[in-house]
């Protein structure tokens, strides 16, 4: 692996993280009016209490001092206290992370596997009936918001057919343990993960297809045919591998966009993950919690992007050897 490339990426990610902390700090100071008053829209809170809070949060100091203070707290892992849950924000968020990771992991895996296959087929059979069918379906899927899929799936499979639960992560007070508990959670996962898969897969198919078509028009595909390489091998060895390269880059760019689908799906199905927490924080106007959630989402996007970059260096020999993509055509 190219050290220079990785070092540059680490530096860039670090700077991005720094900038994100600043944005995260600044947005919540831009609140029109007094931030503390915004946080407590409760008339029972007295002026003295607010002043005390101001000192506690360091809001009586100048902007720069406040930011340094915020960073110090961040370094200690302190994100403030959630007004709604009356618990440290860090703690509230931490218990939600695994649930969201589970949901997104499963959905992303399904979407990528199915999407790649369908997209590659559509691109490979460009212009055929199969192609236009896949194209039409994916453009339709692409146009439906994740929450709309959620509502439709819920109406169909939770209300009408009552096959799957309405929401939540497990049946309340069921007392399930061991394998039955896992099965119960899996059942609760089906609808939310499908609403994410359906939402993301359309876009993924479209990208794979166009990437595939682009690759198939490249001269090296003609070269491979002229060599007498079997069609299947042209697909797997020559086309797919090259089609993956832009796909990986675009997947990286899309991570920032994907966060949306998770919030929508978790909200509809009350999946107690980060997305639903975000929604609840908005509804309850719990600013410290909202600020913490946003930070977690933003940091996750940066980390995932970094991971995608590393993956890219492993697959593209041009980056592996030169430290940057050689622009060829």
């Amino acid at each position, binding site marked *: 692996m190219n050290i220079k490339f990785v070092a540059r990426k680490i530096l860039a990610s670090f700077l991005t993280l720094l900038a994100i902390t600043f944005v995260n700090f600044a947005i919540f100071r831009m609140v029109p009016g007094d931030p503390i008053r915004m946080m407590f829209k409760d008339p029972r809170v007295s002026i003295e209490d607010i002043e005390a809070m101001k000192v506690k949060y360091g809001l009586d100091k100048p902007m720069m001092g406040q930011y340094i203070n915020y960073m110090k707290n961040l370094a200690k892992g302190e994100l403030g206290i959630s007004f709604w849950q009356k618990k440290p924000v860090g703690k509230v968020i931490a218990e939600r992370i695994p649930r969201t990771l589970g949901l997104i992991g499963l959905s992303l895996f399904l979407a990528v596997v199915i999407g790649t296959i369908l997209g590659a087929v559509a691109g490979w059979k460009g212009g055929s009936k199969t192609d236009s069918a896949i194209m039409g379906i994916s453009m339709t899927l692409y146009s439906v918001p994740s929450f709309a899929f959620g509502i439709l799936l819920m109406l169909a499979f939770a209300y009408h057919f009552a096959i799957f639960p309405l929401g939540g992560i497990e049946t309340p007070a069921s007392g399930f343990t061991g394998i039955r508990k896992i099965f119960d959670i899996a059942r609760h996962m089906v609808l939310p993960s499908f609403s994410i898969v359906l939402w993301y897969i359309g876009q993924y198919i479209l990208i794979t297809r166009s990437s595939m078509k682009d690759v198939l028009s490249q001269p*090296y595909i003609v070269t491979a045919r002229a060599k007498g*390489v079997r069609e299947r091998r042209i697909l797997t060895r020559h086309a797919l591998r090259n089609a993956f390269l832009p796909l990986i880059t675009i997947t990286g760019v899309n991570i920032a966009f994907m966060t949306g689908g998770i919030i929508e799906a978790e909200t509809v199905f009350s999946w107690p993950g980060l997305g639903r927490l975000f929604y609840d924080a908005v509804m309850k106007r719990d600013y410290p919690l909202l600020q913490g959630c946003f930070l977690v989402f933003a940091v996750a996007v940066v980390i995932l992007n970094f991971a995608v970059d590393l993956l890219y260096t492993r697959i593209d020999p041009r980056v592996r*050897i030169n430290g940057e993509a050689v622009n*060829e*055509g």
Partner: protein
Amino acid sequence: MSLLEVKNLCVDYEMRRGTARAVNNVNFTLEKGETLGLIGESGCGKTTAAMSILGFVTSPGRIAEGEVIFKGKNLRNFTDEQMRQLRGMSMSIVRQEAQNALNPVLTVGEQIGEVLREHGIRNKIDVEDRVDSLLEMVGISPERKKSYPFEFSGGMRQRVMIALAAIAEPELMILDEPITGLDVIVQRQLLNLLNDLKNKMNLTALLIAHDLSVIAEMCSRVAVMYGGFIVEKADVVDLYEKPLHPYSKALIESYPRIHGEKKKLVSIPGSPPHLLSPPESCLFAERCKKATEKCFRCIPEETIIDSRMVRCHLYSEEECNV
């Protein structure tokens, strides 16, 4: 028996606004060990003709008429799989050096060896030995087979392409502008390399170029293409000394001579014909100084004069029967 016989080949491109005939009634033969040159401006159909030999005419193009007979068998009756077996093994192609003519994510060794592996030669050591010796033959050190295409210069990549086309010692090699787009010194080296290979392997080749000097280096016979037709076929020297077709003459006059008297370069007036619904006449008539009224009335037939072929009304007595 000739190695390759192209008879009456016609290739059409179906467009929304009509049909363009890119290759029109093309006839030529290639004897074993012979190199035939095919010359013409860009867009005259020479590449399409070559690609249809390999069975590479894809929609919206199609072979409308004619036969391609390779070793006595009509390739138009071959299945896709039979054609695939043939490609790389019995006939191969070197195309103009292009970015991405080699797969950017596979090593050159892998890409050269793939020709053999895909045609049933699975023994790893055999394949590797063969790759090494081919790389050496084209002047690349065998250790570099682990490199990727982007680590080579354009000339080197073209050497790889030649190795790739030659590894299975095919009976027919199509050289489609193999040295175009490279700098002059590299062109010279590649020409020498190709000539070497030709002698060593007793290659039969079809060389496509737009420059007669390149053809003269390698071929004894040459066919001149214009607007999808072969308008003249002759020995290279004969054509050069005494071109019959006005287009051949114009083509020769438009290139500088290295030897012999200095002459003014003359460009050909007008532009190449538009192949979408062409007129039923000689396609060169519009640009031809010697054109007569007959030239605008019908397409000239092939005429044989002193074992040369020419398609021009100046040399035929026949009247238009339209």
